Every structure is written in C-alpha cells, then in structure tokens.
C-alpha cells in the first residue's frame, strides 16, 4: 500500500460542487433578506411616499413616525401583547407540561391534541377566534341564549380591550408548543432527583418550583426567544382577528407598517417603522445568539 502524506487531492468537481449547490440559496438569501433589509434601511432615510424614490431626507421619516399617535398605540399594544402573550403562553404551557409529566394515560394523544393549534396558521386561528368572540355570533350570544341575558363579552369590538383578544388567541395557539418544549425538558430530568426530593420531604409544587424548573433554564430561554420574536413579528393574527381595529386600537407595529407603507402611501414612514422592529428583534436575538455560540465553542 502506498501512503501519501499531504493535503488530500480533490478533483475540480469535488472542490466546486458544494459551493455550486449552496450558491442559489446563498444568493437568494443575500438578495432577498439582507439586500432588502439594506434597501428598506435606505428608503427610511428618503422622502418616499406612494412609490420609492431616492431623495435623501435624513431622519425626517423617523421624526414623523415618532410624532404619530397611531405608532405609539401600536408600540403600547406590542408591549401589552408581548408581555401577556409570552407570560401567558409560558405559564399555560409549563402547567400543561407538568400535568402531562405525571405519567398520565393516553399521554401521546393528549400531547398531539395540545400541539394541534400550532399546526394551524395564525390566519385560521384569528378567523376562528373572530367568530367565537363576535358578540352577535359567538360566546356572548351563546351564554345569552342560555338565559344569562346580562352577560356581555364584547372585547373584540371594544377599543380598550381589543388587544386582549389577540392575547387570548395567541396564547391558545402557542401554549401547546411551549408545553412540548418543556415536556421534552422535563423528560430529561433524572427520575431519582424527584425521588430524592420526595424523601427530603418536599411537596410536589416545591419540587417543581425549586428543583425541576430551575434545571430547565436553557429551555426557558429558548422558549422566550421563540415567543418574543413571534410576538414582535405578529401580523397575521391581528389582521385576521381584529384587522387592527376597532379603529386602530389593536394595531401592532407590523400592521402599522403594512398600512402606512402599502395602503396609506407613506412608504418612508413604513420603512422607518420596519427598521424600528428590526432593531427590537436584533436587540433580543443578537445577545442571545452571541451567548449561545460562545457557549457551544467553550463546551
């Protein structure tokens, strides 16, 4: 047998094939994700209205944006929706996961059942909940027909409460997913840790609160990341459920951006709001990715 000491020799195809195969998707991502981000960033500094133009306007569009009451409603709504949605989905999901972890019968079927909402698109969720929450059609009418004629549940058409209907639908959609993530984490916990805690005299809630859930910190953070970016990007759910209404009471930044840029002919303001959203997502995701990647390099 002859031995060859030196770099392995590849043919032309071996060397170029991987690059060739990756090139189209690389190119598409480069143009349609990063290219358009840059283009949008540039547009936010121009005087673009109905159609894009390239006349430099400095920070004028941002000034307009920050002076817009509707934008601040959208930001406030994002804050309400984001915190309640993340907190609610997390709480419901963890609760379901802990219950399912008690070696219940038919666990597989239940798990699938709870996970199903995730298989629906937000459009379907939004539409279904729109019917259910419609005072003349859904829950309110049902309870009134049962005889409780004083019952009202009109959050969907109440400008003060409309954003909370989005929270309800969002939690319904996502808590099953949170449950699945935490259930997987719970299954990774050594059984004998729970036994040891039982012998130590801890009650079941205390075992979960003091021992099991702290051990699931990584799962907690991944889930937080996923839910946070769903919350910030949320567009379709609001569109299908409330359409941003009544009025613009349930607007979120994504719907604000869409309507200013594409229906109200203020492309510059839309671009500026899109950049604000990008910055928000980046502010959350970049530190997370940084710590994750650094962690894996050390580990």
């Amino acid at each position, binding site marked *: 047998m002859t031995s060859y000491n030196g770099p392995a020799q590849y043919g032309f195809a071996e060397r170029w094939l991987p690059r060739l195969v990756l090139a189209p998707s690389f190119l598409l991502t480069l143009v349609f994700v990063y290219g358009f981000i840059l283009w949008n960033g540039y547009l936010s500094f121009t005087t673009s209205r109905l159609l894009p133009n390239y006349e430099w306007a400095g920070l004028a569009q941002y000034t307009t944006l920050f002076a817009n009451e509707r934008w601040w409603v959208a930001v406030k709504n994002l804050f309400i929706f984001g915190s309640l949605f993340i907190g609610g989905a997390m709480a419901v999901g963890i609760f379901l996961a802990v219950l399912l972890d008690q070696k219940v019968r038919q666990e597989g079927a239940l798990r699938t059942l709870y996970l199903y909402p995730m298989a629906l698109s937000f459009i379907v969720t939004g539409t279904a909940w729109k019917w259910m929450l419609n005072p003349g059609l859904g829950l309110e009418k049902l309870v009134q027909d049962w005889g409780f004629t004083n019952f009202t549940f009109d959050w969907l058409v109440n400008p003060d409460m409309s954003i909370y209907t989005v929270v309800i639908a969002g939690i319904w959609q996502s808590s099953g997913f949170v449950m699945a993530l935490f259930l997987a984490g719970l299954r990774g916990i050594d059984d*004998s840790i729970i*036994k*040891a805690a*039982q012998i130590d*005299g*801890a009650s079941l809630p205390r075992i979960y609160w*003091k*021992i099991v859930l*702290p*051990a699931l910190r990584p799962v907690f953070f991944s889930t937080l990341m996923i839910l946070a970016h769903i919350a910030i990007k949320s567009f379709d759910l609001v569109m299908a459920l409330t359409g941003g209404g009544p009025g613009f009471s349930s607007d979120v930044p994504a719907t604000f951006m869409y309507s200013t840029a594409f229906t109200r002919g203020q492309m510059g303001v839309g671009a500026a709001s899109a950049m604000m959203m990008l910055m928000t997502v980046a502010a959350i995701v970049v530190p997370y990715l940084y710590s994750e990647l650094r962690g894996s390099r050390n580990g």
Partner: protein
Amino acid sequence: MGALAIKNVTKSFGDTHILKGIDIHIEAGEFLILVGPSGCGKSTLMNIIAGLEAPTTGEVHIGERIVNNVAPKDRDIAMVFQSYALYPTMNVRKNIAFGMETRGVPKKEQDEIIARVSKMLQIDHLLDRKPGQLSGGQRQRVAMGRALARDPKLFLFDEPLSNLDAKLRVEMRTEIKQLHHRLKTTIVYVTHDQIEAMTLGDKIAVMKDGIIQQFGSPEEIYERPSNLFVAGFIGSPSMNFVECHLAEQGGEYGVSLQSEGDARFVALPNGARLADRIGQKVILGVRPEQIEVAEEGEPGLACKVHLTEPTGPDTMIFTQVNGKEVVARVHPRAARHPGETMRLKLDMGKVVLFDPQTELRLV
C-alpha cells in the same frame, strides 16, 4: 430492637409479579445487603422500603412503626441513589441543606450539621460548587452527605458505587464500611456486585425472580449456599459444579471423579447421611480455592492444565473434571503451564452437594 422488618411483602403489576412474598428482619445497626441479578426485584423492594412505591400486600415496619401508609418524608430514612440525584441547580451546600430547610431545621443548626458532615466526608472545600463541577467520586460523597445530614433511623443505598470507576469503587466501599462502623447506623444497601455484598454486609439477602433465595450472614451464604443459584452467584470465580454419582466404597460414602486420564474415588466426611441416595446423581459444588495441589505422597487427581490466568497473588488453573470445566485457585509457584499435568485434591470438608432436580443443597 428490630430496625426494619418486612413481612410477606408482594408487588404485582397486573399479572407480572415482581416480588413474591419477601420476609426480612434486621436489628438496629446492621448492614443489610440486597443482592441479585438485574430484574430480581431488589430495587423495587428498596423503593417499597423508602415508600416510593406501595407494596401490593404485606407490611413494612421501620423501628416500631408500620409504615405502609407513611409518606417517604415521614419514614425517617435517607437514601443515596445510583445516579446520585443531586439537585443540579443548587451548590453542594444547598443540596445538603435542602432537606433540612424543608423540615424547618433552624438555620444555625443547619450550618453546624453541614460543617460536621462535610468535614467527615472531606467535601468542605467543595461546598460552593455546583454538582456539574464535581467528579463522580465527589458527587458520591455529596449524595452521602445529604443522607448523613438527616441522621435517619435507616439509610438506603441504591447501587451507590456502580457509576464509579473500579479503583474509586473499592475506595468508596471501604469508606462506607468505615462510616458504618463509626456511626453504627442501620443500612439497607442494594447492589448487583457480589463482592460489595460480601465485603459490606452483616446480613445478605440474595434475590432472584422476586424471591429471597437465601438470607444470612456472608459466611453462611458463602460456605453453605442454600441452592445452586446462590452458590453460583456469590464468589468470584464462581463455584465449580461437577456432576457425579454418589457411591459406597469400602464402607465409605463418596463420589468418583474423572479427569482426562485419571480417575479416583473421594470419600465425603460424614457421608453416611446420604446413604439413601447411593447411586443417585448429585452436583458437587467446590469453590476454586477449595481445590489444592496434592503434596508428594498425598492422594490426588492428575489433571491436565488447559489454561492459566495469573491474577498476581493467585493463579487460576482451568482443567476438566467429569466432563465439566473446573477452575482451581492455586499459588503461582505451584501452577503448571497449559498442557502439563497437575495433581489436585479437593477440600472435602468444605464441598457442598446439590440435588440436580430441586437445585437445593443436600449437606
């Protein structure tokens, strides 16, 4: 005073019977070993003692109490697990303190106990570390520290050494034994390792198929195993089993042994008890160290050496008697090379006989 009594405990899941009537009684300060192959029910029995599982029938007494309906935390027990089961997010100090916090021990007392226990186990320099930063042996000590902090009536050890490497295992075994001597606590210890069982136990319960095959002191179990399973399970290398027929020759009762090229009759001391079994097949059980090299002029069976395994202090000689492979443990200087012949004799005062049908010991 009895420390632990298990009375006719059974455990079944549907038609699967894990434990089939277990009876054990030990005194305070005794070290009880539950030993057996995997699936013999020893861990289930341990969980029943701890209260993590309920017996199907039967009673468990700890001290003077029947504890069948007592929760694990109120049984006054502490347990060390095979996987150590340390709380991963707490440091060593918190791990040890957790149980005391739950029971509402005053903070000052907690600190004293932690200081005492960690000093005893030499983990006082590790108190602020997380379990992930500890080696296997250190985790083992922390797990024991957590148990010791409780000062319970009964310690339960569930295969505590099986995740350690061989050298550490021997060290920890000695430490556990020293700890037991010092603290005089009652310990129930589950293992599948017969050496741990022999070295640590005051009482050993050898289990198989949910039944206690034999319950007794290590010496009883080693010297007078009650059946073929116990005889084969305890001891390393295992006891040799040679099939032979009981015979009478010149007024003495004994068995005839054949090696490749030699045959002789060996008499059993007080073999007369077996008079009614003359002519029947029996299984002769002889431990490797009960086979000795015959001196010049002594009667011996010439055996051909097939293989030798030097272990250092002893050499194992593999040969054949009555068509069965037999291992003898001899002094290295007396050992011959494979292919050569050695004259061997059995220590007939110590051999045991088993009935081939019932597999029970005859004498």
